[in-house]
Each structure stands twice: as C-alpha cells, then as structure tokens.
C-alpha cells in the first residue's frame, strides 16, 4: 500500500526537552484520509505518546487546527492525497505558546474573547412571554457571516500583527464583537466600540488580510475589523462634534 511520511513536531516538556524536534512517521496514504486520520493512525498504531486535540472531525468544533506545511489548517478537512508525495510537515499553530507536541495554549484568546463582551446587550430586557425580538432575514444577513466563527484560532496563527505583539485583541474576537454590534437586537455597540478603539484594539490591524484567507468558515475577520474601524472613527467624530451627547 502507498505510504506518506508525516514530519511531526514533538515537544515533551516532562522529558526536559527545551526545543521541539521533528519526528518522521510513515502512515498509509488512503484516498479519503485527512491529515487527522494520519495522526490518529500514529497515536493508535505507532506511538501512543503523540498529543494533539481533536473531536468532531467534521470541521465544526474547531479543535484540530495545526500548521500543515507551514499553513494554518483544520487537519480534519485537509486531505493527505492533496499533499502527496510528502513529507508533510505538521506543527502546532503559530503565534501561540506550545504546551506539548501539537497542543498550544489558548488562555490568552479566552480572556480576549470575554473582554469584548460577546453577548447580547439590551437597555430593556423584554420578558420571554412577550415573544421573540423581531428580526427580518435581511437584518439576520447583516451579521450572519460573522457569527460563523468556530474559534479554531487559524486566523491568529496567520496574523503577523498578533505574532509580533501578542497584546493585539486579534481577528476572531473582533469579528465576534462586530457580530453583536451588527445584530439588530443588540444595543451594546458603543460599549464594545469603546473597548475596540483602545490601544491593542482594531487600530493595531494593518490589513494584512491573511486572517480571512486562513478562515475555514468564510467569516472574513479582516472585513469585520475594517468595518469596526469605520464605526469607531464615526463614533469618535460624533463625540468630538457633539460632546454634550450622553455617553
């Protein structure tokens, strides 16, 4: 049977390793195997110590993002035949600290996500008994795209601004904040814009655009950031020209 070599980054802090090393594993090359199937083959048949995250293997849980031949990819949706003859280089997502092998630390993102208040903010909560907040399909379309983020972190791995300065809020968190700003049911856009306009917010983005290229769900975080910049600029102008306007 055909084989393909997976060149996998291994980092084992328990074993006093200070640098990741690349280790080659030969796995079967089958037409419908994704990179993840190759990793599972290694784990089950060759080396039980290999560590990585995965779960749904249908591109929706966002667990299995890794660098495949230098590109951020969901390994469940990247097929070995498309990478043949190999070897295929598999490394942990760029721009994040590595905990072990292919596992990176996401704590930073989790803090940033909650800092932009990604929940519906209303001045007056309507009781559930009064029924739904009306929203037309067109109003839904305004933000739908930005609600598709699966938090897979490929955009952070693709963003050189985040790589150079880890304090940047980053593409996914801004896209999700913007998703609520655009939601016709939400009234929290001024609160969020105040947060996004701070240093490390939207203005850190210099429109590289790689986040949108890397996104496996077509979210276009780069677009969201530019839209948020425009909204933040408008808001700043308004408070400059109309200082008496209540905040």
């Amino acid at each position, binding site marked *: 049977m055909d084989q393909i070599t997976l060149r996998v980054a291994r980092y084992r802090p328990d*074993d006093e390793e200070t640098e990741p090393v690349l280790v080659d594993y030969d796995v079967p090359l089958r037409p419908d195997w994704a990179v993840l199937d190759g990793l599972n083959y290694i*784990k089950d048949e060759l080396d*039980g110590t290999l560590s990585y995250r995965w779960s749904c293997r249908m591109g*929706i*849980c966002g667990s299995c993002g890794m660098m495949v031949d230098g590109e951020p990819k969901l390994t469940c*949706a990247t097929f070995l035949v498309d990478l043949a003859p190999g070897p295929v280089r598999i490394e942990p997502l760029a721009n994040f600290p590595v905990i072990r092998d292919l596992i990176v630390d996401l704590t930073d993102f989790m803090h940033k996500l909650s800092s932009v208040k990604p929940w519906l903010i209303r001045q007056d909560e309507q009781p559930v008994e009064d029924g739904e907040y*009306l929203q037309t399909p067109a109003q839904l379309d305004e933000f739908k795209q930005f609600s598709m983020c699966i*938090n897979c972190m490929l955009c952070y791995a693709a963003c050189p601004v985040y790589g150079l300065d880890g304090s940047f809020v980053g593409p996914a968190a801004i896209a*999700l904040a913007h998703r609520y700003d655009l939601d016709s049911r939400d009234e929290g856009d001024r609160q969020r814009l105040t947060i996004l306009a701070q240093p490390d917010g939207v203005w850190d983005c210099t429109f590289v655009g790689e986040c949108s290229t890397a996104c496996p769900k077509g979210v276009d975080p780069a677009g969201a950031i530019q839209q948020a910049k425009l909204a933040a600029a408008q808001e700043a102008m308004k408070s400059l020209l109309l200082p008496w306007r209540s905040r």
Partner: protein
Amino acid sequence: MSLSHDVVIVGAGGAGLRAAIAVAEAEPRLSVALVSKVYPMRSHTVSAEGGAAGAISADDSLEEHAYDTISGGDWLCDQDAVENFVAEAPRELLRLEHWGCPWSREPDGHVAVRAFGGMKKKRTWFAADKTGFHLLHTLFQTSLKYSNITRYDEWYVSRLLVDDGRVCGVVALELMSGLIETITGRSVVIATGGGGRVFPFTTNAAIKTGDGMALAYRAGAPLKDMEFVQYHPTGLPFTGILITEAARAEGGWLLNKDGYRYLQDYDLGKPEPGPVLRSMELGPRDRLSQAFVHEMAKGRTINSPYGPVVHLDLRHLGERTIDAKLPMVRELCRDYERIDPVHELVPVRPVVHYMMGGIHTDRNGVTPLAGLFAAGETACVSINGANRLGSNSLPECLVFGARAGRAAALYAVEAPPPALAVEAQGDDERRRLDEDLLRRSDGPDRISSIRTEMQAILEDAAGIYRDGDSLTKATDKLRELKERAATAAVDDASRRFNTERVAGLELAGMLELAECILHSALRREESRGAHQRTDFPERDDKRFLAHSLAYRESGGSPRVSHLPVTITRWPPGKRVYGR
C-alpha cells in the same frame, strides 16, 4: 490544594452551560464551577444540525408535540416529563433568541419553523443547518457575562466524591499540568453527553465517551434504558458524518440501487413528490434504519468501499434551496465526500447517533444519589423513550439543563458544606491515578486495540437487530476484554497533556457502559423502538412497559431491574406512520 464551589457542573455543552446560567440566575450568590475536558465551544452540541423542536405555530399544540414524542418513543417515555418538556421547550428557545441565537426567520421577522422526522406539524426551529453550533456558541458567549461562573477548561473528572451517600464534589485531572485536584461542591450536576464512541461507526465526536454515565454508575446511581441506541439513517460512509434529517424534511428522497424509494415497502406511507409529515422519509429514525437492514438483506443496497449504502437524492431541490436551507450538507459533502449534492447522489448508511438511555433522573434532573443531578444526553428523564425524535435533543438540553441547574442551586442553598473527610478520597484517587500512570506493562494489548474490539462486539451484538444468543456471547467476550484492559500497554508516563492517560480512563468507563447496554438488551425480551430482538419480534406491554435500571454490583458487573413507565394521558397504542 482543594478547590471549593457551591455547585459543580461537569460538562460544558448545551445542558451544562444552560445549567450553569440557571444557577447563576436563580442564586447569584452561589459560586459555580464549570468543569469540562474540552473548551466549552468544542462540546458535541456543536455538531447538531437540523434544529430544535418547540410548538409555536398557530396550527400546532403542546398535545400534538407530546403525542408525536410519545408515539415516536414507542410509549416508553415518562409522560409527565414529556408534558413538562413540550410546555417549556418554546420558552427556552425564545430565551435563547433573547440571548442572541441567530434563528432563521420568516420575512415578517418571526422565527421560522421547519418539518422534521416523526413530527406531525412544522415545529422545528433552526439556524440554517448549524443549529447546534449557534445554540452552543450563544450559550457559551452568554455564560461569559456571569462572574460567578468559574470555568475549568480541559479538566478531566475521574471520580465523584461521595460522603455518607451524598455526592459533594469531584476529583479532576488538569490536563495542561497533569495535576490532580479535588473540587468540592454542595451539589454536582453531570452534563457530559452520550457515549456513542462505544460503537465503531458513529456520528459522535471523539470526546463522546460517556464519562459522566460511568462516573454516576460507579458512584452507585443506576443507568436507565441503556439498551436503546439510536441509529440515524443518513451518515456518510467512512467518516460517519451526519447528513441532517432536515435534508429529508426539505424534500430529499432515499433511494435503493434501483433508484426506488424503498421506504414505501415498509409501512411508512406512499411516495409523494414533496415531503409529507410523519410519512416516508419523514418517518422516525428507528424505522428508517431498520428498513435499510431489510433492503440490504434483499440485496438492493449499493456496495461501497465502506460497506453497503443507499442514496440520498437532493438534486431535485435545486441549488437555491440547498444553499439557503442546507448549506452545511453541501459543505460536508463537498469537503468530506468530494461530491456536490446539487448534481450528485449522496451515499448514506445508518450510523450510531444517540443514546436514549443514561443516568436515571426525575423531571428535575434529580438522581437517586443525594446531591447528584444530571441533564442532557447523559441523563435519562425519560422523554425519549425507545426512540428519540429528531430535534427533541437540543430543547431537552435546554429544558432539563435549566431544571437540573435550578434544582441543584436549591439543594446547594439548603445543604450543609461538604465534609472534610472527602479530601481523603481525593488523596486515594491521586494515588490510584499515579499508580496507573507509572504502571509499566508490556502486554500485547493496547488501549486502541481493546477499544476496537469492544466496538466490534457492540456492533455485532447490539446493532439495529439483536438476539439473545449473540447478546449472551457478547457479555462473555466483554468480561474477558475488561480483564485484558487492566493490563493494556501504555506508552506515555508523562504528566503534561497526556492524552493517552485520558484515553485509558475513557476506555475503562466505556467498557462499563458497554456491559450495561448488553445486559439491559439481554433482559428486555421484546422489540420496541430502537431495540429490536429477532427472537422476540413483538412489543410486550405486559412485561416491558417499563424502564430498565442497571446498577453496578460490587463485583463490577451490572444488575438489571425494571421500573414502570409513567402514563398520564396517552395509553399505549400502535405506532402509525404514513397513514
């Protein structure tokens, strides 16, 4: 170190998050620990596609939703629980709307509903075909605003702390560091989902190893109706990726190798060009999966490299409908099968999808163990009976997640703090896990090979059709496998993010669940819903209008007893579809 909270919730998917928010809203003074072996947004709720049922249409009623659910469950549902469920489902779905869930809409701005299998009216709320994804992310993002919820992301719970018959916390392994800590609480809610991974071919994610069921079972709580395992009729071969029932609700057809809509041969109605509710492709999942087996026996399925398949035909729906209503179906077919359903037939076969059974609870998520609550797929209330209807599981997570959360909050307010003695149990568990970690074994078995054998045993004996002989043989094989598992070789003795260690703990739990499934199936000498015995082909209400309860004996094997079903308004009748 010991961590202490008022309510400890294990599992952070749909039910766990809903429970956490319910506690936070009911008793803001209580501190909540939300413990999960994955980040909340990785939970398997994310994979649910088609929708969530809640009667809101003018022509719909709670009675009809209840009747569809009860007849769909072949009268094994507890009807008092179903009545609570259908009454609260619309409220819960509206609450989610108020939290920002992007439900698909009618042109006038009201929430839209679609048809679904086994439902007589259109009552399934949907967010295109990524309903579970939107539901989970809405819950997760909303949960971020409550400061009294403390998350323990990527902590694996290995044991419940039980003091004098009362559950008062957990022992958990922090994956990142490999440290083992006790997290005490006045009450504990288990919401860890099902365990479809005991089977080889499943729509279930890798994380769905039934951990919570095993935790409760070992602590002394019974597992209910474990023999009822749902096969979804349309999974993609090899990956087992689910093609949502919504594909059929929008008008998709199931065809055999002759291009014939074979369901008409199985008392499911006459073929019409458009979808007809409770008929043909919109029959319940158990009946459709059973029809597949008969087609296969007749040699009318299509052979694929991954076994026999039938075809799902969506071509006549057209590109516009598919893109508007089923974008994920197209995406999945394109990315994972390399076919375009707009122009091509989709190969599908039945695939293990859902466990109707789980931890025995009442309508408030209360288990027989004091201080322990459960909700979601891991629990069995039971509203799903012998066969769950599509789009009932998401609202089940919400309704019973909230109920369990409120009940656990109330309990925590009144209960005394956990006894200090439980710390000793934490030390015991730490010792046990460390011995297990450092145990060096060169046995011929590996965790993965034992897992594969277990899955094969289950599929052979406890698949769509079962019989006494093979179930008996399977229980023997499984007992032997359990012994071998104890000496399986382990490669990894390190502490940080040791995923092999977790796989070993998961496997031990799955072997217990597998035993419960086999023993419960063996004891139920009738055919009902998803449990079909070729040696007992009829439903037997005299003996088995009852739930199975599997208790763990001191030797480790299950003892099965039965508990009558609660009937309120709908006496057992015949399940009729397509007429």
